[in-house]
């Protein structure tokens, strides 16, 4: 079954059309890059899939189900900012995830925290911004979900942390799941992608396999992106 199916998906804000008649199918077992300039509709698409927005018209289905409580249990979402109560301790956040999500692998999560020398008893607000983001990433990736949606997971992060994050993404890979990564930092991430989606002005520009594109264009995805979205 197709993991995500969007049909004529449209989202308007008053006169402004953020997404226009988008038709898209995403299968499981892929790591997909969602690429496009600011304001292209990437974030809108992600919010529609995660249920944070409702479409103006068109449909989305996740594993055949419409967006709702059931689809939300299949999706593990990492937004591009902190979304946890900063007064919580790290272990409170762990308990929270464990409570609401079955298939939360807390052992694995605690392992990763230990690897990064993060003390679970510390309050989130005492951690640096980068560390808070890593905690969120660990929480999101420790769930056994069907779809992981990562919004700018490596932006504003030092190179060593970047490697840790990319490694975490790869080691969590499951052929029954897909990972959808929205990012600007294409050259850092393109080697782990096997598909890319280009979104421009609310429209689907390209959805292709990464190696096919490289073979055809003899260029990196980063270069192709710069050409397609030249200002």
């Amino acid at each position, binding site marked *: 079954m197709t993991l995500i199916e969007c049909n004529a998906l449209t989202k308007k804000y008053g006169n402004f059309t953020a997404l226009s008649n988008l038709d898209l199918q995403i299968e499981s*077992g*892929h*790591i997909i890059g969602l690429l496009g300039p600011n304001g292209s509709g990437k974030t809108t698409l992600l919010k529609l899939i995660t249920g944070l927005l409702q479409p103006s018209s068109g449909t989305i289905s996740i594993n055949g189900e419409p967006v709702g409580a059931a689809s939300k249990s299949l999706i593990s979402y990492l937004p591009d900012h902190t979304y946890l109560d900063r007064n919580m301790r790290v272990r409170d956040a762990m308990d929270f995830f464990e409570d609401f999500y079955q298939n939360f692998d807390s052992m694995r999560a605690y392992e990763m925290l230990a690897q990064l020398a993060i003390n679970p008893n510390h309050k989130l607000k005492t951690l640096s911004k980068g560390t808070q983001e890593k905690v969120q990433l660990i929480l999101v990736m420790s769930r056994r979900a069907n779809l992981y949606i990562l919004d700018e997971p490596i932006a504003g992060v030092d190179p060593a942390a970047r*490697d840790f994050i*990319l*490694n975490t993404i*790869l*080691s969590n*890979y499951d*052929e029954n799941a897909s990972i959808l990564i929205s990012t600007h930092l294409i*050259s850092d991430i*393109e*080697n*782990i*992608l*096997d598909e890319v989606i280009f979104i421009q002005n609310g429209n689907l520009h390209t959805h292709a396999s*990464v*190696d096919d594109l*490289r*073979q055809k264009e*003899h*260029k*990196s*995805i*980063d*270069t192709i992106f710069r050409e397609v979205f030249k200002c």
Partner: protein
Amino acid sequence: MPWNLDSDRPIFIQIIERIQMDIISGLYKPGDKLPSVRELAQEASVNPNTMQKALSELERTGLVYSQRTSGRFITEDTAMINNLKSELAQELVTQFLENMQKLGIPQEEALSIISETIKGDEHHDTD
């Protein structure tokens, strides 16, 4: 050794080349067991599907074979490995001569440059 992968060319082709080099150079001996797709993908920091594609292609050419539950192994056919070695060596030489031609250096001169470089290396070795 870190995997230096170029984003300009399909990754799976570069993976094939790298594994071929590792086999020829003796890093992987005939009959050796390869790490799992997942492990290799993590080591190379590439998508597991891409690694899978590369390994499938290597299987197709016979350089690698898989046993259902035990995993993937390097072929024990040393003749095939030597053939591959010769082919790759040939490609390197052809590439070298093409590059020399681009520089405007005729083939005989290219040949003497090679001889002198080798003698020079021998001198260094004996120093």
